[in-house]
C-alpha cells in the first residue's frame, strides 16, 4: 500500500516535470524552425522564379541562329528584329575583304539590357564582294 502511494506521487511529479520541459523546448524549436524556414522559402522561391539561365540559353540559340542566317544567306544588312521576348539587333562593319557581324540579343521590355552577344568576322571571296556593292 505504501509502495503504491509512492509510485503514484512519483508519477505525478514526473508528469509535471516532463510537460514543462517539452513546452519550452517546443517553443524554442518552433522559433528556430521559423527563423530558418522563412528566409529559406523566400530564397528558394526566388531561385525557382528566376529563369535567367533559360533566358540566357534561349538568347544564345537566337544569336547563333541569326549569325548562321547572315553567313548562310550572305545577308549583310543591318537589321532589328523582335521575337517573343527578345530584341535581335544585327550590326555590320565592312573591312577589306571582310565583314564583321555583331549580333546582340536584348530583353524586349528593356532594350538596354543585353543578354547575349556574338561577334564574327567573315571572309569574302571576290564573288561575294559584289554583294556588298
Amino acid at each position, binding site marked *: 500500500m505504501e509502495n503504491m502511494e509512492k*509510485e503514484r506521487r*512519483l*508519477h505525478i511529479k*514526473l508528469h509535471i*516535470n*516532463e510537460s514543462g*520541459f*517539452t513546452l519550452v*523546448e*517546443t517553443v*524554442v*524549436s*518552433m522559433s*528556430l*524552425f521559423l527563423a*530558418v*524556414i522563412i528566409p*529559406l522559402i523566400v*530564397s*528558394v522561391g526566388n*531561385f*525557382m522564379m*528566376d529563369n*535567367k*539561365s*533559360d533566358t*540566357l*540559353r534561349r538568347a*544564345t540559340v537566337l*544569336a*547563333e541562329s541569326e*549569325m548562321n542566317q547572315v553567313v548562310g544567306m550572305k545577308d549583310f544588312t543591318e537589321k532589328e528584329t523582335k521575337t517573343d521576348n527578345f530584341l535581335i539587333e544585327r550590326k555590320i562593319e565592312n*573591312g*577589306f*575583304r*571582310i565583314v*564583321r557581324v*555583331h549580333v546582340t540579343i536584348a530583353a524586349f521590355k528593356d532594350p538596354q539590357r543585353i543578354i*547575349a*552577344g*556574338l*561577334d*564574327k*568576322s*567573315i*571572309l569574302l*571571296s*571576290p*564573288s561575294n564582294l559584289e554583294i556588298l556593292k
Partner: protein
Amino acid sequence: MCSKYLRFIVAAGVDRGTFLEWICRCQFYYLRLLERWYQNMLHSYRTQMNTVYRHTISKKEEAGFALPSILFLITILSLAALSVVMLHYLQRKAAMLDLARVHALYAAQSGISEFLAQQTSLTNIAAGISTEYSFPYNSKATVVLSRWGCFFLIRSTGISGALRTNAAAVVGDNPSIDFNNALVFANPNHQLVCAGNTSITGNVTTGKGGVITGTLQGLPTPRTIPVQGKVSQQANIQLPQYRTAELLNEMSEWDKVIASAGINGSGDSTTLVLRGLPTILQPRMIAPSVAAVSINGDVVIQGQYIRTENPLTIAVTGSVAFSDSARIRGLIKILAAKQITIAPNVEFDFPVVYSQSSIALLSDQVRAQLFAPSITFNSNAAARYPSVAVSAQSQLPHPPKNQIIMENGSRLEGTMLFLAPAADTGVVIIKEGAKLIGSLYSTAYITLDGSIDGTVITKEFYFYQSPTTYLGWLKSARINRTALPKSYLVPPGFSDSPKLDILDWL
C-alpha cells in the same frame, strides 16, 4: 525531369558517374539519419514507459525529442534548399559555358578570316606567321599558318574565358585573271589548230598565230573555229608564272625525310622506326603522340589513320601499297622513295602523298594531294575536289621522266600542275573519256583528248599519229570554262597579290 538535371550536371563538366555516386552517398546518409532518428524516438518511448511502469527515471532521459526533430527537419529542408540552389547555379553555369563555347569557336574562325584578309603578298606568307587577334566579349584567337603541300594549312585557337576551341582549314587562292580563260596557249611560235571534234567554250588567248581549223585523216574538219568565246592574240605571249621555288623546296625537304628514314637509329619518343621486310603498318602501332614513322623497306598500310591536331609523317625508303580497308584522313603525309599504289576502295581525305618515283591511283574515293614525277589515273579512278596532281622536276640524281596519264574513265576534280623543266621533258596525256574539273597548268606537252571543265594553261599541245608528230593541235579536246563552279580555288602561287580563301575546314 531527373534526366534533365543530369544533363545540366554533365554539361557543367561533372562526370555522370561521380554525380550518381554523390546521389547514392547522400541517400545512404539520409537513411542512416532516419534510422538514428527512429532509434532515438524508440529509446525515448521506452524510457517513458520505464518511467511509468518501473519508476527508474532520471532527469536526463526525460528530455523530449522536439528540438532534435526540428533540427533534423531544418537540416533536411536546408539540404533540399541547397540542392535547388545548386541546381540553379549549375543551370546558370551551363548556359554561360554554352555561350563561352560559341564565343571561343567564333573567335577561332574569325581569327582565320582576319588573318587571310590581311595577307596581300605571298613573300610574307612563305616565311610562316603566327598572329594574335582580340575580339569582343573577352575572346581572342591565335593563328598559325604553314605550308600543306601545294596549299596552306591555317590553324587557329579561339579562347573565351577558360574555354579553348581549335579550328583548322586548308587555304587556297582565288584564281588569277588568266584563269578567266578557257585556254591560254602560251606558244608564240605555233598556231592553235583545232581539228576533229574539238570544242572550246570560253575565251582563248594565243600567240600571234591565233586559232585555225585543221584536217586529220579519219576525223571531221570543223567548218568554223570551234571556239564559243573571244580569241585574243598576244605577239609575245608568255606562260603565266607559277611560283615553283617554295614547292620544290618543300619537296627537297621531303627527300631529306625519306633519306633519314634509311639511316639506322632508334629515333626519339615522337618517332617510330620500323625495319624488316616486308612491313605491315597498322594503326595500333602508332601512338597519338607519334609525329613521324620511319620505315626502311617496302610497306603495306592497313586500317584507319586520322589526324586532325598533330600531323603525322610516314616516310618509307621502299614502295607503299594500301590494303582495300585503308583510310587516311587529315594531316598525314606519306613519303616514299619508290612507287605508291592506291588500291581500289582506299579512302583518302586530303593527305599529302609524295613519291620520288611514281603514283598509281586505282581508287575512286580519294581526296588528296599527289606529288610524283609520274602519276597514273587508272580507268575509273577518281580524285575529288580539291585534289591536286603535281609532277615536278625532281632534285634527285637521275630523275625519272615527268608524266601524268589520265586513262579513259578517270576523273580529277581540282588542279593538275605539270612542272617539267623543259617542254620536251615530259607529257600530260588526258585520254578520251577522262575528265578534269578545275585547271591544268603545264610547262610542257599536253595530249588532250578528254574533256576539261575549267581552264587549260599550257606551253604546247602534242600528239603523234604515224608518221607525223603534231604540235599545237587538238583533235578531240572539249574545254568548257563556263562549267567550272565559281567557288573553285587554285593552289597559291599564280598571283603575287593573292586573295586567299578557305578551301576546306578540317
